[in-house]
């Protein structure tokens, strides 16, 4: 069997392979240390200059030294070769060193392969709607590069003249067209496989992610240490409600519940012994879907209060919080049912009561004294809650995101000295006051409100919507939400934080907020992105089954998925075979030739076959000899063909003449052998 093994790949193939590699590098350029692309570009320039004989390529020793040096550089920077960023950097550097020894088409194929791997690395990191077109463009570029390298790999030892002629036939444009056409043919299969190729329910191994700081609510809160609360405009999650959404004052999104207070910091301490209080769910039922953005935390947010966990590996804790077993790094979708109004159906167990009335030692003595005084003045816990809220309302407190730093006894300092704070201060102080009077209370952190997106019909909840409030146990009602911030800054409930404190977020976000058209545009973009994320990026095994169900399968499972997948594959293969095969069929090149072929066939049926060497004129002569009776009909047509084909070009009306000729051929009827003509 013959092997195609030319010594040198084509220059054009080298250029294209290098181009594909550089494009792959560009997709990843902001995720690797900046010296990596710089080094890679130097090697690329080196290779291209060597190709135009300006420089010599390095030898084996230089290349090996370079490779060792670069790997060492990566290890020094990342302390590992494992992980997405380190792996990507390694891929870029090794690909560019490979470029230095690229000679044969085989090496060019390897460079294109590394460009495809760079695409994979980019995909693993980012899959936004913005990136999808870039990825598609890169795939196109890689395919065109394959075409050029493939063309160059079949060595042309023919003469120079013939190779220049073929280069004109298959130029870069033809390669791009070929790549695009092949990808368009591949698209139906890609869509079909995307929908029906069985997905895995879980992962084999986790991706070692590095140095990507993901924001989110933490599991502790110490308002006294914060002097400047900067909130980011980043999205925490989005919520689609089936039916009408809850009113603004009910849009509390429950996150971590904090129980333990040391006088300065609230902590979420796991109380494994506590039992969940059974709840009676009252009022309207809200069914909604949450699209959670990636975060380093394990919290799944729910509208206060959820009825249960959406998934087995997400715990529904005794304080009605949803905690996943793993961090929400890839982001996720889940559907929940919540009621905004609940009642406890049994009394609080002693253990829970003890936990949630605990105050450490002797901290915050003035607040305690105040609490005891206020409690003694009222008859019930409910009245006491009102008294404390009244104290906050009338005590000259102000809502601010730039509070002064608080002292050792943070609550005392806040209540009696500074009187400036944000939600954390108020929730903390209120809860301490409750506990000091023996009322079980805890701090709940989460989000309040959210921006309504009218295009996608969902709420966008951002990090800037983060909030904290208090929950107190009232006999006969159970855990009751009390938001002390609401009495100080009632507007916070109704509107977003930006309305009351525009300086809460960064300048660009403020600018967006101040321009309604820009905000509307961004909302549209967000809606599009969300649809993309929900329908495409988070498409999983369950969605596949749902899709099958919609296609008419009764109770779809893996088997049905396999059937849909197999039949789609076979159908596509048949279509491609038919479509591609169609191009090989023998067709005369133009309309004129087709008409002439028809004419010759007609004459052949009448007994006058044209020899393949005969031109129209000699054929006309033969017709005249064989069938003088046909001459009047056929002769002008054959002459007309010769004139149209070989005569001077009639530029303006040529197409019309050809059409007319084709029509005449179609209308020609050849009479059977005329009587009296002797057969020959």
């Amino acid at each position: 069997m013959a092997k195609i093994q030319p010594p040198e790949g084509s220059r054009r193939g080298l250029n294209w392979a290098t181009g594909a590699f550089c494009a792959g590098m560009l997709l990843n350029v902001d995720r690797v240390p900046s010296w990596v692309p710089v080094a890679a570009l130097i090697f690329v320039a080196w290779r291209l200059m060597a190709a135009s004989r300006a420089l010599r390529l390095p030898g084996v020793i230089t290349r090996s030294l370079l490779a060792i040096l670069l790997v060492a550089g990566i290890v020094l920077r990342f302390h590992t070769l494992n992980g997405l960023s380190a792996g990507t950097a390694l891929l870029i550097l090794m690909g560019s060193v490979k470029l230095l020894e690229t000679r044969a088409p085989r090496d060019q194929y390897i460079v294109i392969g590394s460009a495809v791997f760079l695409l994979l690395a980019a995909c693993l990191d980012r899959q936004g709607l913005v990136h999808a077109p870039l990825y598609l463009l890169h795939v196109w570029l890689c395919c065109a590069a394959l075409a050029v390298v493939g063309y160059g790999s079949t060595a042309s030892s023919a003469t120079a003249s013939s190779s220049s002629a073929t280069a004109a036939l298959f130029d870069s444009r033809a390669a791009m067209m070929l790549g695009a056409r092949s990808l368009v043919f591949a698209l139906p299969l890609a869509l079909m496989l995307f929908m029906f190729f069985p997905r895995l329910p879980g992962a084999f191994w986790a991706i070692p992610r590095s140095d990507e700081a993901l924001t989110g609510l933490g599991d502790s809160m110490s308002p006294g240490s914060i002097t400047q609360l900067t909130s980011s405009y980043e999205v925490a999650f989005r919520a689609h409600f089936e039916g009408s959404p809850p009113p603004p004052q009910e849009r509390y999104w429950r996150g971590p519940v904090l129980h333990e207070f040391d006088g300065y910091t609230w902590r979420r301490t796991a109380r494994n012994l506590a039992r969940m209080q059974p709840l009676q769910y009252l009022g309207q039922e809200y069914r909604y879907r949450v699209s959670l953005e990636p975060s380093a935390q394990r919290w799944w947010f729910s509208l206060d209060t959820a009825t249960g966990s959406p998934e087995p590996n997400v715990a529904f804790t005794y304080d009605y919080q949803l905690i996943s077993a793993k961090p929400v790094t890839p982001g996720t979708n889940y559907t929940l049912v919540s009621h905004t109004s609940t009642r406890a159906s049994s009394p609080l167990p002693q253990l829970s009561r003890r936990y949630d009335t605990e105050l450490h030692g002797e901290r915050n003595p003035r607040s305690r004294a105040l609490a005891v005084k206020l409690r003694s003045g009222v008859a019930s816990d409910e009245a006491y809650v009102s008294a404390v809220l009244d104290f906050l309302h009338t005590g000259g407190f102000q809502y601010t995101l730039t509070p002064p730093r608080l002292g050792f006894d943070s609550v005392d300092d806040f209540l009696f000295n500074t009187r400036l704070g944000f939600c954390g201060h108020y929730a903390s102080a209120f809860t301490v006051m409750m506990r000091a009077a023996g009322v079980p209370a805890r701090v709940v952190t989460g989000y309040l409100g959210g921006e309504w997106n009218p295009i996608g019909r969902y709420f966008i909840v951002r990090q800037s919507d983060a909030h904290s409030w208090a929950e107190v146990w009232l006999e006969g009602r159970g855990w009751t939400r009390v938001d002390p911030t609401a009495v100080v800054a009632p507007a916070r409930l109704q509107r977003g934080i930006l309305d009351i404190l525009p300086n809460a977020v960064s300048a660009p976000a403020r600018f967006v907020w101040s321009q309604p058209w820009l905000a509307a545009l961004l909302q549209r973009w967000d809606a599009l992105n969300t649809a993309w994320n929900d329908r495409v990026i988070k498409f999983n095994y369950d969605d596949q089954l749902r899709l099958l169900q919609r296609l008419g399968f009764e109770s779809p499972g893996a088997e049905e998925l396999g059937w849909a997948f197999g039949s789609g594959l076979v159908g596509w293969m048949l279509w491609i075979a038919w479509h591609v095969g169609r191009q090989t069929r023998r067709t005369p090149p133009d309309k004129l030739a087709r008409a002439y072929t028809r004419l010759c066939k007609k004459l052949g049926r009448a007994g006058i076959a044209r020899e393949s060497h005969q031109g129209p004129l000699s054929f006309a002569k033969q017709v005249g000899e064989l069938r003088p009776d046909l001459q009047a009909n056929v002769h002008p047509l054959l002459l007309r063909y010769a004139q149209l084909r070989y005569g001077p070009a009639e530029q303006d009306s040529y197409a019309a003449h050809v059409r007319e000729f084709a029509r005449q051929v179609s209308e020609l009827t050849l009479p059977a052998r005329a009587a009296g003509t002797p057969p020959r």
Partner: protein
Amino acid sequence: MARWIRKRQGTDSLPLSLSRRRLYIIPTRAGVGFGLVLVLMLVAGLNYANSTALFLTFLLTGFALVSMHQCHRNLLGARLLAATAQPTFAHRAGTLSLIFENPAAAARFRIAAAVGDGSVTPTDLPAYGRGVIALSVPAPKRGVVQVDRLHLITRHPFGLFRAWTWVHAPIEMLVYPQPNGSLPMPTHHGSRSGARSVAHTGADEWLGLRPFRDGDSPRQVDWKAYAREAPLLVKEYSASGADLRMLDFGVLSNLPLEAKLEQLARWVVDAEDGGERYGLILPGSQIKPDRGPEHRHHCLAQLAMFGLEDTQRGEDTAT
């Protein structure tokens, strides 16, 4: 394998359309590598439930399958119109010219051919166009070289697959004996009465000029006249018996057979180049004096086939 395919396809006759039945296709090494890349991408995409990576994997999978069909299509329906080999001298490589035709509206690229397992040479066929591949065929010794198996391959487009076919058409290349030997050309021959020997100084009788015909020796063209923008003319000399040479096998008595044939070939070539009239006498056959390329071929062919007619023919195959 080759024998099985030969039996399956039978002997072909030109012109030949490459049909579905005779085309074979397998992935190349680059294609296997591409497949490995796809498997890796699939595993990564599935593991991380990464929809983008999965979609692009599927897109490239489709792309590879499309490229398989395109590769197959690139050969399918192409026509091999003719395969002709010009005679050559022994110990030199001959040239086998293959003429391909593309009867379809889509161009075909990088259709390559090889003799047996030899190295390949590609050509491109534009829509409805033709392409020629010139293959070098080694000619180890005089006689006939039979090319009984042609290998047509393509890896276009993308080089991920290789489609190929074998063509078993009876193609023969005549191999003249290598012109060799340093004996002087016989100057006299007595078979024709009254012939006188003339040293080949070109003392021929000037006859005149006539228009150039295909096959005329460039030495006889009147280049000076051509330089004066006259049409291509050929100087004609009378060779009326003056420089007639009969190249006789019989005079080379003390040489082995092959050396005799090589010496005769040398003389034929030299005589033709000198513009002389010459004839050939071999045991059992004789060629009357004449000149010109056809005559030269006739003589050399006689030398090539001398003594081989039945015994050796068909043994020297190039595959």
